[in-house]
């Protein structure tokens, strides 16, 4: 097995990740890459308490994670790579060999436009996702396994109330 999902989700570890993806994919570890969480023991304990006992959570800053991803991909256990934002995932695409990116949740904030129920983007963030694609990553939006993986251009064209 390997890293079975490379996900951008601003809620980081939560129900969709642990249960929605974790159970059907039999995920045994989560690599959580976030500079802020990597620097806080309290935040790490918070996230560890949210996963089942047989699921390991490993915390890294973006800079520290990139050179470790080959080793994580060589793991026999299935795992999820998780970032809370696009710039962190970009680092992992550029320097960590990530070649497919799942957009799982980028939620409402001032200045963002709603594309899907769970994806809101500023124009700059939309460009940043296009750049991930230019760098060679296949970018799709999919909140849960039962949903369709929506290609990036379709996502960027979608708007709230448009049936998506």
């Amino acid at each position, binding site marked *: 097995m390997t890293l079975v999902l490379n996900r951008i989700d*601003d809620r980081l570890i939560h129900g969709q*990740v*642990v249960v929605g993806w974790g159970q059907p994919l039999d995920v045994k570890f989560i690599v959580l890459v976030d500079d802020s969480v990597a620097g806080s023991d309290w935040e790490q304990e*918070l996230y560890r308490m949210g996963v089942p006992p047989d699921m390991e959570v490993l915390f890294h800053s973006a800079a520290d994670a990139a050179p470790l991803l080959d080793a994580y991909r060589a793991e026999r256990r299935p795992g999820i790579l998780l970032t809370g934002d696009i710039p962190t995932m970009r680092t992992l695409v550029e320097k960590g060999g990530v070649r497919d990116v799942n957009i799982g949740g980028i*939620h409402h904030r001032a200045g963002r436009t709603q594309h899907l*129920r769970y994806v809101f983007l500023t124009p700059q963030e939309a460009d940043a996702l296009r750049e991930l694609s230019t760098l060679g990553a296949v970018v799709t939006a999919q909140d849960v396994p039962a949903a369709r993986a929506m290609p990036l251009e379709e996502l960027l064209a979608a708007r709230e109330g448009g049936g998506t």
Partner: protein
Amino acid sequence: MSDVVVKRALVAGHADFAAGLISAVEMISGCGNVLEPIQVRGLCGDDIQKLLHEKLVETGARVIFTDLQAGSCTMAARRVLRELGEGVLVAGANLPMLLDFAMSSNENAAEAAAAAAERGRAAVSVHGAPT
């Protein structure tokens, strides 16, 4: 006589979890109005945290019930209670738990929450399980 209802707890979770459970509490006991439903659909973690904080301040409640231990509401609630330095969080809420809390005559909401958590835990049963 005042018609003002004191909110004793917030209920937060995925999708319509909170509103659904509170409507059931109301139907069964008529006490659903002591619980404040929190709708978080479409919100990022920071905004959930902000919303919970605002609602705790607005209502004066210091108890939060959430659905999943790994849920974003639970994560946000733990951060908010840490900020406030007080309050009780019960993750894994179910209907028997909320009924017990809503109908409790214990004026100490934290104690009522702890008792309700035990009630909710004990209310789970399995019938016809393979032996």
